[in-house]
């Protein structure tokens, strides 16, 4: 069951939501559409669900024109951020809805439906809650019902639109793992829309990073990490420091050290601004070490990693992430030398957009 999206355009008034999106989704794949708000990821999902019609372009499922089918003919499962459960029905009736509305000839018998509902309740691990109304369930339980309801029709595609957005962090993490388990158990091709890079990277086989209605990069999470296609990808996927540098022959030269440029592939020589990750930043306390001289300004964080904010002599603050064991060697006010493992050149000012680290607080996650 291969889903082919080919050159899809969609405009809302004068706002271009999708500008020529092409993409192939493999059978049984867990794909994530990631991007800031307004990047077109939800529009693409709604086009796939049949709730929005593209102005231009094609969508095929196994070679069959998907756009010619109405939403109710497509047999897809759609899960909404706000659950969209039917409030006047019990969880069990909600789950059974897709089966009960089938024409008489295609409708399973009452006992078959009841058995299927039980099975689905077990799959999403809320056995025994079938008789409850949505109002009597927690947010996490409601979303489980919504997932079960979407799966009841044995969808050809499971589409999820920010399904964890309304849940608190702990429940969100728990449900994330559940969703992956359910995907692996059912084998249904799954497309998850999210603006949370951590969620996308943790869950998906491949991530489609979107921006301004276009696809910036498609790849496995590790590929996106190792070889970002643009400074936007780099800044969107994690925290970044900014530092001016001088580029020559694919190497960025800073005061006291150099670092290879991983993006763009063939950087132009000359002055530039480098972006780099806190985890790619190394601190050395030795008095004669190489690197940019700096002074430790703040040490924060818990668990295995500490964020150490350093004040460069020019006044700039840069953040390094250091293992807890190593972090014990540093103290506030100490002189250190800073080096960087790899950098991305900020060719279009992408790093400026709220992506850089706030040194005075715990690491800020970039969310749209």
């Amino acid at each position, binding site marked *: 069951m291969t889903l082919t999206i080919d050159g899809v355009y969609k405009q809302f008034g004068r706002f271009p939501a999708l500008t020529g999106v092409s993409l192939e989704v493999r059978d049984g794949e867990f794909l994530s559409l990631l991007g800031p708000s307004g990047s077109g990821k939800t529009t693409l999902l709604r086009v796939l669900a049949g709730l929005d019609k593209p102005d231009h372009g094609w969508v095929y499922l196994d070679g069959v024109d998907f756009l010619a089918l109405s939403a109710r003919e497509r047999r897809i499962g*759609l899960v909404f951020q706000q659950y*969209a459960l039917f409030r006047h029905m019990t969880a069990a009736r909600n789950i059974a809805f897709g089966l009960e*509305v089938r024409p008489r000839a295609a409708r399973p018998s009452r006992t078959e439906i009841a058995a299927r509902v039980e099975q689905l309740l077990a799959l999403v691990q809320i056995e025994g809650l079938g008789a409850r*109304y949505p109002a009597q369930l927690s947010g996490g339980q409601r979303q489980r019902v919504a997932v079960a309801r979407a799966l009841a*029709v044995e969808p050809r595609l499971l589409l999820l639109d920010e399904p964890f957005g309304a849940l608190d962090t702990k429940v969100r993490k728990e449900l994330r793992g559940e969703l992956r388990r359910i995907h692996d158990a059912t084998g249904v091709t799954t497309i998850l829309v999210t603006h949370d890079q951590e969620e996308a990277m943790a869950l998906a086989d491949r991530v489609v990073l979107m921006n301004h209605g276009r696809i910036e990069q498609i790849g496995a999470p590790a590929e996106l990490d190792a070889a970002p296609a643009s400074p936007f990808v780099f800044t969107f996927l994690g925290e970044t420091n900014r530092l001016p540098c001088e580029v020559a022959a694919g190497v960025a030269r800073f005061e006291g050290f150099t670092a290879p440029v991983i993006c763009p592939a063939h950087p132009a020589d000359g002055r530039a601004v480098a972006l780099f990750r806190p985890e790619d930043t190394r601190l050395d306390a030795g008095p004669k070490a190489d690197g940019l001289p700096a002074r430790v300004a703040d040490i924060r964080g818990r668990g295995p990693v500490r964020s150490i904010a350093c004040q460069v002599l020019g006044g700039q603050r840069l953040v390094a992430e250091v293992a807890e064991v190593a972090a014990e060697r540093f103290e506030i006010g100490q002189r250190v030398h800073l080096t960087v493992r790899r950098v991305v050149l900020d060719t279009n000012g992408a790093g400026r957009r709220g992506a850089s680290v706030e040194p005075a607080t715990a690491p800020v996650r970039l969310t749209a």
Partner: protein
Amino acid sequence: MVALATPRVAGGVAPRRRPWREPSVLPGFAGALGFTLLYVGLIILLPLAALAARPWEHGLQGVLDAILKPRTLAALRLSFGAALLAAFVNVAMGLLIAWVLGRYRFPGRRIVDALVDLPFALPTAVAGIALATLYGPNGWIGAALARGGVKVAFTPTGVFVALLAVGLPFVVRAVQPVLDDLDASLEEAAQTLGANPVQTFARVILPALAPALITGFALAFARGAGEYGSVIFIAGNMPGVSEIAPLVIVTRLEQYDYAGAASVGLAMLAISLLALVAVNAVQVAMSRRGGR
């Protein structure tokens, strides 16, 4: 902390119960509650009590005699029957109008929206004269209908028609905000699950609107049962045929039969109260099922 959580330990009082007085940002609870009770008592309870106390000068038999007169019974039946019927029709038509106003954008929508409120705003007697003129034997509609052998004015049908006009805004205004707030994703969910438009409406939208429809029904019914001004001209007031209950009260009063008038009033009050309780029971049952 422990002592705070279990007041029994701290002060030897009974286990914690939900306090009947929730903390409030505004002070003056005692005064506000006192005023509320006084006002409700003065404006609502006192007149009702006076009505309930009035008819007993000839004893229970006197009250029953006044109510059980065929003419009174017929009037009560007409008032409540026509109100019930009109409320049902208004629920259907009000839902339709609220739907059209809420879901479609067409030129003049705001004007239609404003027109719905007109029966609220119009003095009822004005509405009554207008209806009587329109449906009278020489009126535009009345004349046309008369040619077809249908008589509306001065018949129970006339009462029904007047109550349709009076009750409509109650249903529209009760349903409209709920319909506007209805989450579009509910319909989209039903659609993607394979429901056709009829199934989506019957199984998803209608149940979500049901509480508002019942509220609208109750308001339209209550208003219709007691309606006087807009009905009186078109009804014709033939005793036993097209005479409404409020008119029976007025007639009794004009004959200085205060006890009789109060008896009929008491009967209307009792029926209305029963209807109110029934509507409430349905709503409680529904909110217990779904709720917010």
